[in-house]
């Protein structure tokens, strides 16, 4: 198939693909997301291919192997899904492959040991859609991920791809913007600015040239929703951008991807090529007379380049520094031209809104935060990974229903949302709905959607110190409050965690937070106070314990804790003394062991390896 010359031709092509597709054909889907590849999914896929060749399986069973994007459940990779049974296997190794082919593919039976085991009920759940991690999700931005081969444009078209574009090209640009406005779609990159309003402001500015851009510079520690979309469904982003470009009258687009995402760069690049070769990108798209093309711009790894004005300077080839946004980028953005910049997830939602309509989208979520949001749920929960849920779901539902509760039955303490400049929300507020406004009100923010779950063994002062340390490294250095204020804030926090905190330190921290919030140049600086302010607001007692009592209640801050062994609980198994890097644990077999507190470096290895919970922190 070459150029698709019209919307009708696209539909005919889709029908042809559907007729050729065999939905009942046994299909093995091996996840090729970055996480699963790192866990060894390639040898698993090769093992499947090998067995199919060896056994000449086309005689009795036809197996198509597709390599897909990330299923989101990376912790349990490599993941293998089987169609048409709808079964998901976790942590699959090449040596399991023969059994899967024999039992499941040929025999239709479940290999129990590879299926999901619910930690609470010990129930085995083999059906993909019944696993709690997936059951409560509602996938729009992630609609195709894990189901299609991101390197095959036909797979995307078969799944309904480019229908949104075909529909949009038949509409008036102004009506497209109205549709996006009515859908209530807000930017998923952090600010939550209404996408339709942004597009309309861009159109209102007189200019011969406009640009649309995609922000794929996802830099929050632990966040990987945008990577997953760029890797697993690049066409959804491209299609969204073409629709946006048509709506605002842009003919050139840029996708800014961090270079640390090689697979995203590769899959986006091949998707752009494929879209061009089908006439979906480039001159005269789908015979509509509208022309638009996309370039990929690779970022060099500076966190600040996720900030819109810094990102644009970086694409221009200048130093990635923010500028004052007294004149907005929809007026003067890239190369000083009106520019619409939305993030990956925002763009990925656009085609689906065009197909299903604004009303459908606006029916999801809350009054002011419509639709769904992808979160990367990480930290001390049982099920970590990428989840997409309707806006307004409570933190508790996320942690308990989807996340499967806290690891090891420990107590749930707080969630940190919104990336390094987000804030911490305590367990007692966990019935709070997760949407843009509630999170901001609680002193945190939606950010790009990172959710880090913390248990009782997390020290909140240490958490604040960790994030400020990250921001010190990532501050671009352009403005004084961020450049010189954050390192001073880190000094104070470090002193507190090392037992050198002074009574006046909390007030001093609050003063620096005030300075950053009012005085910093860009959004990163003005929100950099959040980790400190929110932990002071909700966990003041922990600051006080560190400062006044020189005590770390969570047992984390090394200068304030000592390790000892409970002689009652210790069985004298000697494991801790073998593992101790300092060799400072002594004791005879079957007798209680003792830690030499002088030489102990408080690394916690003894506590980690002890099977009898005999190591105490005080």
């Amino acid at each position, binding site marked *: 198939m070459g150029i698709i010359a019209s919307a009708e031709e696209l539909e005919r092509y889709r029908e042809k693909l559907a007729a050729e597709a065999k939905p009942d054909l046994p299909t093995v889907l091996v996840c090729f997301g970055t996480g699963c590849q790192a866990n060894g999914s390639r040898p698993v896929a090769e093992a499947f291919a090998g067995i199919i060749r060896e056994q000449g399986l086309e005689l009795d069973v036809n197996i198509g192997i597709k390599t897909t994007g990330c299923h989101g459940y990376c912790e349990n990779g490599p993941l293998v899904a089987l169609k048409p049974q709808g079964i998901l296997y976790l942590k699959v190794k090449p040596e399991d492959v023969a059994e899967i082919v024999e039992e499941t593919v040929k025999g239709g039976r479940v290999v129990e040991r590879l299926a999901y085991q619910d930690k609470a009920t010990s129930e085995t759940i083999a059906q993909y859609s019944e696993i709690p991690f997936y059951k409560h999700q509602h996938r729009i931005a992630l609609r195709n991920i894990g189901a299609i081969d991101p390197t095959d444009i036909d797979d995307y078209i078969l799944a309904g791809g480019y229908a949104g574009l075909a529909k949009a090209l038949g509409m008036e640009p102004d009506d497209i913007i109205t549709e996006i406005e009515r859908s209530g779609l807000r930017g998923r990159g952090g600010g939550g600015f209404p996408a339709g309003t942004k597009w309309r402001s861009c159109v209102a500015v007189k200019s011969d040239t406009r640009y649309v851009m995609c922000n794929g510079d996802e830099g929050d520690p632990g966040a990987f929703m945008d990577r997953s979309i760029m890797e697993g469904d690049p066409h959804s982003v491209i299609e969204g951008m073409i629709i946006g470009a048509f709506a605002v009258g842009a003919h050139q687009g840029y996708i800014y991807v961090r270079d640390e995402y090689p697979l995203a760069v590769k899959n986006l690049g091949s998707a752009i090529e494929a879209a061009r070769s089908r006439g979906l990108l480039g001159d005269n798209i789908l015979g509509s007379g509208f022309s638009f093309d996309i370039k990929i711009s690779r970022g060099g790894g*500076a966190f*600040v380049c996720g900030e819109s004005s810094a990102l644009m300077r970086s694409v221009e080839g200048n*130093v990635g520094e923010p*500028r*004052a946004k*007294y*004149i907005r980028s929809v007026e003067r953005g890239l190369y000083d031209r009106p520019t619409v910049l939305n993030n990956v997830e925002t763009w990925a939602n656009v085609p689906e809104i065009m197909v299903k309509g604004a009303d459908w989208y606006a029916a999801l979520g809350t009054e002011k935060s419509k639709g769904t949001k992808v979160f990367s749920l990480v930290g001390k929960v049982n099920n970590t990974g990428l989840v997409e849920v309707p806006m307004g779901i409570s933190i508790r539902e996320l942690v308990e229903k989807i996340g499967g509760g806290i690891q090891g039955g420990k107590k749930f303490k707080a969630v940190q949302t919104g990336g390094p400049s987000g804030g911490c929300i305590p367990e007692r507020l966990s019935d709070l709905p997760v949407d843009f406004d509630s999170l901001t009100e609680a002193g945190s923010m939606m950010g790009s959607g990172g959710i880090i779950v913390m248990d009782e063994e997390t020290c909140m002062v240490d958490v604040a110190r960790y994030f400020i340390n990250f921001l*010190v*490294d*990532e*501050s*671009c*250095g*352009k*403005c*004084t*409050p961020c*450049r*010189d*204020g*954050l*390192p*001073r804030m880190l*000094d104070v926090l470090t002193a507190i965690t090392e037992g050198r905190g002074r009574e006046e330190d909390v007030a*001093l921290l609050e*003063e*620096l937070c*005030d*300075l950053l919030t*009012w*005085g*910093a*140049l860009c959004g990163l600086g003005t929100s950099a106070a959040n980790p400190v302010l929110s932990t002071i607001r909700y966990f003041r007692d922990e600051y006080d314990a560190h400062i006044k009592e020189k005590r770390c209640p969570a047992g984390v801050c090394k200068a304030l804790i000592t390790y000892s062994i409970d002689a009652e609980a210790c069985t004298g198994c000697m494991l801790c003394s073998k593992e101790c890097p300092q060799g400072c644990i002594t004791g005879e077999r079957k007798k209680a062991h003792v830690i030499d507190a002088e030489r102990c470096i408080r690394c916690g290895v003894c506590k980690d390896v002890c099977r009898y919970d005999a190591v105490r922190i005080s």
Partner: protein
Amino acid sequence: MEKISVIIDGKTLEAARDRCVLDVARENGIYIPSLCYNPEVKSSGGSCRVCLVEAHQRGRMRMVTACNYPIREGLEIKTDTPLVHRIRRGVLELLISRVPDSEAVRDMAAKEGLTETRFRKDEGENNRYKCIACALCTNVCAEVVGVHAIAMENRGADKQPATPYHKPSDVCIGCGACAYACPTGAITMKEKDGVRRIWQKDFKMVACSVCGTPYIPEAQVDWIVKKTGKDRSFFDKCPDHR
């Protein structure tokens, strides 16, 4: 230019739309401190944050840098409120911590009644040699001189102007505009025996044929001749004897 009225500290003033608040305030005798901004350099400003003032517009207040905030209809600026002084003091306290030896910073802080910092000072191996990393020098070099001999390197607290790889620059003309523009006197430029040294490079100076004073680097003459086509002999005499 279209004139509009704007209120600064209660006074209604006439000013051209899109001019910056700082210029208009100064022309009307209203004090707003600034370090990184130079009215002759378009790309300057927005970095040091000492000129933060309250901007009231459409029922909203935000802190903006006077040096690059455009005058618009219905804008009211307040430069003398508790919030403005609190933030200004905060910024200056951080600047004292960064460059404790800078007289410019100390003098400005003294106007706010601030003489010391409660924070760690950048001293010893972290000595910033008076540089507040405001980038006015690199902006002058790129925008006014047009040679791009220096640029800001590193990020965060280590951000500073430098020549590429800290080697003598191939393109520097030794004009010293960076040093003249620097608000804190952080760039060293020395002259001895008809030779100027700046950014680790020596520049032979042209002496005035009348008074004999070395007054301009040869490299700068070459640059001006190349750029403007002016006759080289024009530079035989210093500005005082032309």
